[in-house]
Each structure stands twice: as structure tokens, then as C-alpha cells.
């Protein structure tokens, strides 16, 4: 049998080796089986790490479970309450504002940075590494640094402003609702811009020079080349970057929790921070799960929207 096994042709590209072939050989040569085996770990991880918590979260959001007691099925009552709850509505507003404004500015600034880095510059490698720093530094660390920068008594920004004569007293960055909102949005823009810049830079470097040369010969201006050559060529990478950023920003937790813990007066709560507060700190698991559930359809919609509207093509 061993000799027979050796004679079985290898390197098949598909289909079954046929009956009568030992199972070990069949496994080795059946590409469909191999595909399943290779995919299995990923599928198991996805089911275990995404599928199960998601299903559990959906179930809990339909119950009245707390840390203390088992829950009973209560239908949509958590969701019905939440849409009437002013704190939840504030969190939804904050999350949408935080995501939309952040992504808009991250895209604009990221594109500007990418265009700059795509030019012939001295120390380009070093500059790229420096610009990437805000993205690679752990969020909690950078959030703590910004928390100091925004400190009501020791803010370096206030100190500079006072010494330059621009202001006469410290800026209350985190003490009033709108100041706090803009402050955390600014930090997220600072943190996320390098991701856009590096990704778009990678996209820029795939744009064939011949297209720009052809547009040049046709008399196109710089803006026209950017608008009609560069941007369309970047649509694919833009779709990916915007989708990823939307997912990360909409479900962000660590930045806001580290800087404001949702304050002042719940003015900076995002859905994720509010869910954590309600479920883990407050012990109301079902309500926390329901809040988290609001994130899922939005992220799904963002993904689809970006996929179909921004890329405008099938990948």
C-alpha cells in the first residue's frame, strides 16, 4: 500500500482523488478538503470570538438580566426605553458627531499628508515614521497625554495662550459639554490621521504616472489631475480606509473613557462607554447589551454604504 500511495499523482488542483484511495492520501490531494481544513481555524475563531458574543449580546438585550439575577425575556422593552432616554440619545448624537466629524477631518488631513509625503522630500522615511507615531502609540497612553494637555489647571495649550497674550485665563477644555466634545474629537483626529495618510499614500504610489502624463498633455491643471485622475484611482483604498475608520471610531471606547469617562454630565458618552457604564459598572447587563446592539446595524450599514457607494465597483 505504501508503494501505491507513492504512485498517486500529487499536485491536483481540485476534485476528489477517487474511490479506493487511502484517506490520508485523499486528504492530502483533495483541494476542497484542504480548503476546508485551512479555513476551519479562522471559522472557529470567528464563530467563537464574534459569533457567540454577538448572539449572546442579542439575547441579553432582549432580557432584563442584571449582575445579580437571571434575566427573563422582555422583548424590545430595553430598546423602547433607550430611545426615550435622554442620556442614550445624547450618546447616539455624540457617537454620530464623533464619527462623522472625525472621519471627515481625518480624510482631509490624511490626504494632504499623503500628497505631501508622496513628493520628493528629504528624510521622507523618517517623516513617514514620525507621522505614523500617533497611530502606533497605545491609545490609552496618548489619551493620558492629551488629558494633561486639556487639564483645566495645567494645560500647556492654555499656558502658551496666556504667555502669548491670546487668552487671559485657562481654557476649560473638558469642563463644558461642547468644549469636551470638540476636545475628544480633536484627539481622535490626531490619532487617526496617520492611518488615513499611510493608507492613501500607499494608494497614491499605485497610480500610474502615465495617467498623469496623459492628463498633462491634455492640458489638465493640477486640480483637474487630482480630481479626475488621482481621486478616482484612490476610490478603492478610500472605501477600505473609511470603512475601517468608521468601524473603529463608531465603536471607540478607550479614548473617551480615558479622558472624560463620559463627562461632564454625560456630554461625551459614546455608545460603547455608556454600555460599559450601564452593564459593568452599573450591573444592568441587559441594558448595556441593548446599547451595544445599536452599534451593530450602524456598522453594518456603514460597511455596505461604503462598499457600494464609495467604491462604485465590485471587488
Amino acid at each position, binding site marked *: 500500500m505504501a508503494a501505491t500511495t507513492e504512485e498517486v499523482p500529487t499536485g491536483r488542483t481540485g476534485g476528489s482523488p477517487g474511490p479506493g484511495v487511502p484517506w490520508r492520501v485523499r486528504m492530502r490531494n483533495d483541494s476542497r478538503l484542504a480548503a476546508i481544513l485551512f479555513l476551519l481555524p479562522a471559522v472557529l475563531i470567528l464563530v*467563537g*470570538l*464574534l459569533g*457567540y*458574543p*454577538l448572539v*449572546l*449580546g442579542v439575547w*441579553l438585550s432582549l432580557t432584563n*438580566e*442584571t*449582575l*445579580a*439575577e*437571571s*434575566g427573563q425575556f422582555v422583548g424590545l422593552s430595553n430598546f423602547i*426605553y433607550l430611545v426615550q*432616554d*435622554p*442620556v442614550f440619545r445624547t450618546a447616539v448624537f455624540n457617537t454620530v458627531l464623533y464619527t462623522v466629524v472625525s472621519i471627515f477631518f481625518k480624510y482631509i488631513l490624511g490626504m494632504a499628508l499623503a500628497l505631501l509625503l508622496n513628493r520628493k522630500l528629504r528624510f521622507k522615511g523618517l517623516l513617514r515614521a514620525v507621522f505614523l507615531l500617533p497611530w502606533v502609540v497605545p491609545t490609552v497612553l496618548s489619551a493620558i497625554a492629551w488629558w494633561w494637555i486639556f*487639564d*483645566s*489647571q*495645567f494645560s500647556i495649550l492654555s499656558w502658551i495662550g496666556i504667555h502669548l497674550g491670546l487668552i487671559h*485665563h*485657562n481654557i*476649560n*477644555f*473638558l*469642563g*463644558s459639554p461642547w468644549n*469636551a466634545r470638540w476636545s475628544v474629537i480633536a484627539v481622535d483626529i490626531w490619532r487617526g490621521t496617520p492611518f488615513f495618510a499611510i493608507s492613501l499614500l500607499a494608494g497614491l504610489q499605485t497610480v500610474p504616472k502615465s495617467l498623469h502624463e496623459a492628463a498633462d498633455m491634455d492640458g489638465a491643471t493640477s486640480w483637474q489631475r487630482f480630481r479626475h485622475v488621482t481621486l478616482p484611482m484612490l476610490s478603492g483604498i478610500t472605501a477600505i480606509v473609511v470603512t475601517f475608520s468608521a468601524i*473603529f471610531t463608531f*465603536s471607540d*471606547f478607550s479614548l473617551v473613557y480615558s479622558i*472624560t*469617562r*463620559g*463627562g*461632564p*454630565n*454625560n456630554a461625551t458618552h459614546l*455608545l*460603547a462607554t455608556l*454600555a*460599559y*457604564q*450601564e*452593564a*459593568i*459598572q*452599573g*450591573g*444592568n*447587563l441587559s441594558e*448595556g*447589551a441593548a*446599547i*451595544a446592539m445599536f*452599534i451593530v446595524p450602524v456598522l453594518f450599514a456603514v460597511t455596505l454604504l461604503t462598499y457600494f457607494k464609495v467604491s462604485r465597483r465590485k471587488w
Partner: protein
Amino acid sequence: MSRDGDKFPPALHTSELARMAASGVSRRSLLRSMGLGVGALAAGSLLSACGGSSAGGAPQVVKSGPIEKGAKLKLLRWSAFVDADQTNWEKNTQAFTQKTGVPVSIDWETWTDVQPKAATAAHVGSGPDLAIAFYDTPQQFPDKLVDLSDVADDISSKAGAWFSTPQKYGQSNGQWIAIPLGANGAEWNYRVSWAKAAGFSEFPKDTDGLLEFAKAMKTDGHPIGLALGHAVGDANTWTHWLIWAFGGMTVDSNGKIAVDQDGTIKALEYAKQFGDQMISGVASWDDSNNNKAYLAGQLGATSNGISIYYSAQSDAPDVAADTMTAEFPVGPVGKPTQFHQISQFMVYAYTQYPNAAKEYIKFMMAPEQYKPWMEASEGYVSPPLESYTQDPFWTSKPQFTPYRDAAKNMLWDGYSGPMGIQSSQALADYVVVDMVARAATGQQSPKDSANQAAAQLKRIYGV
């Protein structure tokens, strides 16, 4: 002014919530613990927080007996604010191990991380054998804890009576579900020379005097500052004190929402005047901001644990030399209405070594171990037992004395209603802090702010 713990707070066991029958760790615990862990990674949101359960009810009664063979313990404890606290705690723990042969590993966690970790462990049925958590965390899941009534009796037999509020925190339906370690007292720290310059030879004893003090200090350029952001300790402690000092409360003794009544409105009117005297930016302050500002010499007074004085001695000796401490003034109700972060031992029902855990608590709370540790902690933990407050340590330095009676003079979370999941959630949601902050910063009128808090509480309490 009465400081008699027997007279106030009121008698124990009022309006306790009825509990369902006890049960063991649920069949879904393991699966749910998996969900809890992986969800955090996968969803990046609260999908992670949604794990397991068992029916609510009474604590798990474990018949006391000898320490289990091969027992070893894992303790979850908040990391020390005073270095000698940790040193002495570990020393006592080693002594316990030498005496019993039971090794004890201690997870020192940042104090704000203890509550979620302790609650998660209870819910999934896996984790440390025992924990020391803050506020009314044990009241959230009494059925997932071991009945410690025999431990409480044993400690009391050696160290005397418990103060009433710590006892209330430790009990559910007459059974001890947790053993109070003590109250991490929050009292006033102020600059003596600046106070004298402002015309105050001692710290005010009542709320009217406190307002005058705040005005005078601001006029002299040394404003007071108290946290009004989402500060778990510093904001909760003084805002609750304020509401109660004027007769306000979130919930009455019948469990009805009472936050929108006269006492609270008066407290919020006071808060507006009081807030106007504070240094700017307090609405964003967390638990560390007042420490930084005080040590930098920007504050004339603030409320904090004695750790601020401890830090000043090493980091800002000139500030420490000019610092005196004082108890929270008494409001129109005429009685102390302090609120502090109580710290409690609790033993999880899932532990394999409940008797070892009980012995550990008894050992650590016994006078031979507790007193040296209490002294080494320099007053950071106010004892829950009357006899320990009579220790000469508390009068060895005038700065220590105001912290001595923190556990005696405190009220409880959710006063004057029952403690439980609702009071915990109200605290976690910063209902009182935000209510005071809205009024103090002028975002809302006192009445509107109280009404908003009432709406939040009605939802939380389900009424």
C-alpha cells in the same frame, strides 16, 4: 453636634429587597465566561459584558469547618495609596500563610478596576477566591457570595461592635455577605495660613460657615476646588454629603424616588453659590485633579482621602507643613451626613476554599494584624469597629483625627433606601454628581436638575 453612631444613621435593615432562593453557579457560567472574555476582543463594545447568571437570592451558606486541605487563595485588592499599606498587608498575609500553610496571592489592581473585575468574577463564576471591593458592590450579587455571618461574629467578639453603616453595607437580609474593612475617608484638607488670613482660625463646622469660608478664600486668591466630573470617589463623596446635609435624598426609606423634593432643591441652590466660589474647571475633574492642584498650591482647600496629605509630605513639604484636615461640616439636618468609599471583603460562592478565605479575613481583621496595618496606612482606612477608633494612633497627629470617624459618621449609597443593584447603578451613572454639577455650573436650575435626576432614578428603580 452628635457624633454618636448609635443615634445616626438610623437602625439597620430597613426596606431590604426581597431575595430569591439561593442557587449555585449556573450551568451557563463557563460558556458565558467565554463570551465575556472574547466579546471584549471581538465587538469592542459591550457585547463582552454580557455573560452568565444564576438566580438572585441569599448568600451561599458554607458550614464552617477546618481549612480545606491544599487550600490556596487568590485575593483581588485595590492597590495601595500609601506605600506602607501594601507592605504591612503583605506582611500580615505572610504571617497568615506561616500560621495556616495557606498561600495567598494578591492581585493589586488600580482601585477603579476592582469593581468591574469583582462583578465580572461573580457573574461568570470564575476568578479570585475573595475580593476587597468598594461601595455596595457585594449588594449587587449577594447570592454569589459566601455567608460570612460567623466571620463577622468572630471579629466582633474580639474587636467589639460594628458601626451601623458598615454593618448595613455588610449585610443582606440579616446575613453578612461582606466584611467591612473600613471606609476610605474623604475629608477636608486646607491650608492653615491661608485660612487664618481669610479670617478662619479653624475649619467651619456647618454649611453656612463653609460657604463663607469658600467666599473668603476665593477673595484672597486661594479658591477651594472639589471634583464635579465623573470622579468615582472625590465627586461622589462630597455631592452625596451635600444633598443629605440639606435633608435631600435620592430614595426614601420606602424605596420611593425622593430626589426632587425640598431638601435636594435647597442643596442645589447652595451648590450654585458654592460652585461659584470654586476654581474654574472643576466640572472636568476626575479623582486626581484636586490632588494635583492642591499640591501645586493652587487650592486653598479640597476634599480628599488622607493620601493627599501623605503625598504632600514627600512631594510638597511646604504644602504639608501648612495643611490641616477637618471633617465635613454639618448641614441643616444637624447630623453628620458623610459619604465615603467603604471597602469590604467578600468571598465568592464558587471558591473551593471558603473556610480558608474565612480564616484569612478573621486573621486580617483581628487586632494583632489590623491595628499595625491601620497605623501604617496613616489613616487612609477608617475602621468599621468602634474599638479600633480608640487606638492612640488616631490622636497621634491632628491631621489623622478627622479621618478616624469616617466609618462612624457615614451614610450609605442609596440613602435612605435599600442598597442593591439599583443604588449601584445610580452611583455608576453619576446621577447625584451630574445633578449637582448641572446646578453648580449653572447649566440647569436646581429644580430642573433635580427633575432630570428624578427621571433617571425612576428608570433605574423601575418606578
